[in-house]
Each structure stands twice: as C-alpha cells, then as structure tokens.
C-alpha cells in the first residue's frame, strides 16, 4: 500500500501547469485534492511517472459572484464551498450536496474541479453541477474552452477534458427568481458514495406554475443522468402530490441502472423514484422562499 516512485512537479501558474502536461502527456497526472487519485496510487492502480500538483498553482481557488452568477475556481476546496456564505445564499444546492461528499476530513482537501474531472458516476458534485446548468472551462495549450456540464461527462471516470487540459473554472448561471433546490441520496453509510442520488432545481413562475425544472441523478448510469421527461411533467403545471407521484413512476420506468454488490438494479430504480418524489416535493416547497 505504498505508491510507486514518481517525479513531483509543483507549477506556480496555470500556463506552467499546461506546458508540463503538454510535455509529459500520458505519463503525468494532475493532483488536485488527491482524495481519489492518492488512494489509486497507494493501491498502485495508478502509477503516474510524474505528478503535477495543482495545490501550489496560483489563481485556481476562488468564488466570485457576478450579477447572481457564480464563478468557482477548479481548485476551490469542497469545505470552502460548503461554508461559503456566497454559495449558501446563491446556490444552496451545493452545500446540501457537499455535506454528502465523503467526510469533513475528505472535504478539507477535496476540490470541486477534482471531483468533476474524476467523474465518478456515483459522485454528488457532477449531478449537482449538471442540474445547475453549469459550464466547465478547460485550459490547454490552445487556450480556453467552455462546455456545458451535460456534455462534459462522457462515461465512467471519463470526461471531455483533453490529456493536456486543466479544469480551471466552473460557472453557474444565476437561478431564476423563486427557485427551490434539493439534493437527496440513499447511501449505505453517511459519507459513502450514493447508491442513488438526485439533484433537483425547480422555479415557480409569477403565475404560480413551475417554469424551469431539472432532475439529474447520480449512481444510476455511467454519467450523471438527466431525466428530461420528468422535467417536462412538472414544467408548466402547478405540481401537487399527484404530479410528484407521477414523476416517481416515470423515473422508476425510465432509468436503467446496473445492479452490483451494493444494490440490485430493481432496488436502485425503486429508490430513484422515491428520492425523486421526495426531493422534488422539498424543492418545490422551497420555491416559496426564493
């Protein structure tokens, strides 16, 4: 349980990090919070020849608010986000999801960019960022490019990041007025990866009906899974218990999770419907306060 030897590189700037990545290519691995990479290295499931540590790279850890929209640096710690009054005020979905990510000692080190780039299908943050219509900025030798979270996640532990790109920023658009959000999951133990989790974002229009709606699940497929048909079911209506129950049924029929040691596919489908109904009910009740 000791990592294989590697060369340690600690770039001070993003351009320096990018040029190191470009030079060393597949031999190098970026180290963000290390809460997923270092276990893999300790078990020698990952044996990078070079580790490029972003923890000393300047200008990657920040939270900025511009007209209600948020810009978050890729190396911002999960614990920092969880405790940020700006995030709590503008985007309470994030602290709610973050409280379920590992344990406090994991969140002290873990970063938002690291979690997104690692792309574990059971992880909370990718689903939350997708539900918030987040945009992800990658910086590489050819400059910056920005892509929506929904097209960032390609498969299990696989993203649209090129081997020479660094995830530098997450942008979250301002939420409409009277928006309610909720993150719920079922896990074996507090802090474990979710068997099933869901991020819900809904907005109440001035006429009282539901406008914007997002339901994105984790733990039920290779990437975060958005169920657009469930969103369409609530959008344009004044959702009540009957609508929430219809969403539960639709989610249960739509999702096609795999079964594994921790839970069968049927159980995951059942739980997905239940957490969807509960999270949607809670999120809708929170639109009163927005």
């Amino acid at each position, binding site marked *: 349980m000791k990592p294989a030897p590697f060369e340690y590189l600690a770039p001070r700037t993003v351009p320096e990090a990018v040029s190191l990545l470009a030079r060393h290519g597949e031999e190098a691995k970026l180290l963000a919070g290390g809460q997923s990479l*270092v276990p893999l290295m300790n078990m020698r499931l990952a044996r990078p020849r070079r580790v490029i540590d972003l923890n000393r790279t300047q200008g990657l850890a920040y939270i900025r608010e511009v007209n209600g929209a948020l810009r978050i640096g890729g190396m911002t710690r999960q614990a920092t986000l969880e405790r940020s009054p700006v995030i709590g005020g503008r985007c309470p979905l994030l602290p709610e999801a973050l409280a379920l990510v590992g344990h406090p000692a994991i969140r002290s080190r873990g970063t938002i960019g690291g979690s997104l780039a690692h792309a574990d299908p059971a992880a909370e943050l990718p689903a939350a960022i997708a539900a918030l219509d987040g945009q992800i900025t990658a910086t590489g030798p050819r400059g910056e490019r920005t892509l929506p979270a929904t097209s960032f996640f390609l498969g299990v532990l696989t993203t649209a990041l090129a081997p020479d790109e660094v995830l530098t920023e997450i942008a979250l658009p301002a939420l409409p007025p009277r928006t309610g959000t909720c993150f719920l999951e079922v896990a074996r133990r507090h802090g474990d990866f979710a068997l099933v989790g869901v991020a819900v974002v809904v907005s109440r229009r001035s006429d009282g009906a539901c406008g914007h709606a997002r339901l994105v699940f984790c733990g039920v497929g290779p990437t975060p899974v958005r169920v657009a048909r469930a969103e369409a079911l609530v959008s344009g209506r004044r959702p009540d218990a009957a609508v929430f129950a219809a969403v539960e049924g639709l989610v249960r029929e739509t999702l096609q999770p795999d079964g594994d040691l921790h839970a069968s596919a049927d159980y995951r489908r059942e739980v997905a419907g239940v957490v969807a109904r509960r999270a949607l009910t809670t999120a809708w009740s929170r639109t009163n306060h927005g």
Partner: protein
Amino acid sequence: MAERHVVRLTVNGESVERLVEPRKTLADFLRQDVELTGTHLGCEHGVCGACTVLLDGDPVRSCLLFAVQADGARVGTVEGLAHDGLHPIQEAFHDHFALQCGYCTPGMLMTVHDLLQRSPSPTREEIRKALAGNICRCTGYHAIVDAVEAAAARLRAAPPREAAR
C-alpha cells in the same frame, strides 16, 4: 529513484526539516521520519480515518497527502493534544471507556477535536455523523458518543489554555 525534496514544516509547534521522496505520505513521514507513531494507519486509502491529523487547523487524512505537499504547513497530531495532563477530550475517552483496542483512537480524537471547535454543543446525531468517517472495528461507538458529549460539556465549562495546533 525520484529526486528527493526538502520539506520544512511545524509538527505540534516544533520546526521539522527532512529530505523526503515525493511518494512518502504525510502519515509515513510523521511515523518514520519524525518518529511520532501516534498517528495510525489502518486502510491507507482514506476510508478508516485512523490517520486523521490537522493540517493548518483542518482535519485531513494523512495517508492521502504526500509529505512534500505539507511543506510550509502546520501539522497537529495526537501527540500535540495533551498539555499538563490529558486533553479534556482524552480524559473523557478515558473516563467513558471509549476505546477497546485503541487503534482508531488517535483519529477519533483529532476528528472530535475539529468537531468541537466548530460545534461546541453537538447533538448525539451530529456526533455520529461527524464520526462516520472514523471506523472502530471493536464497535465501541456508544461509549465514544458518550465521551464526546462529556468532552463537549467539559470544554464549554473550561476551555483548555492551549489547543492542538
């Protein structure tokens, strides 16, 4: 072999300087190079919590951090808790028999230290949540929760003069 790096940091307030291989974790560094063996290694992949230490005041898994990354940092270990006798948290663990084999205890103490700094009056439910990342395989959690409640009461009544660094 990969190039070694000079690491300078403080451990429990004392300056330490060593030459380390990049692959050496902070946990192994503390145990082997600084000879502070109070920090225990259980799983070595961040699950068990036995190796929890404080890095610049925040609880971290010392098995998931390379010593070279802690250059310039303040590290607090279980050895730094006691001053003029046991720390109130240690006393409460002792009084409530909140350990059997004791292997998980250093990580429990550091986690509880952080919890009580942030939340001086946690409920039993909050205590259980805070300890969910620290695994005790003697299954002594009831006594540990009792001890944390007692420690919280003691710390509220009489905060220690010097907290762990």
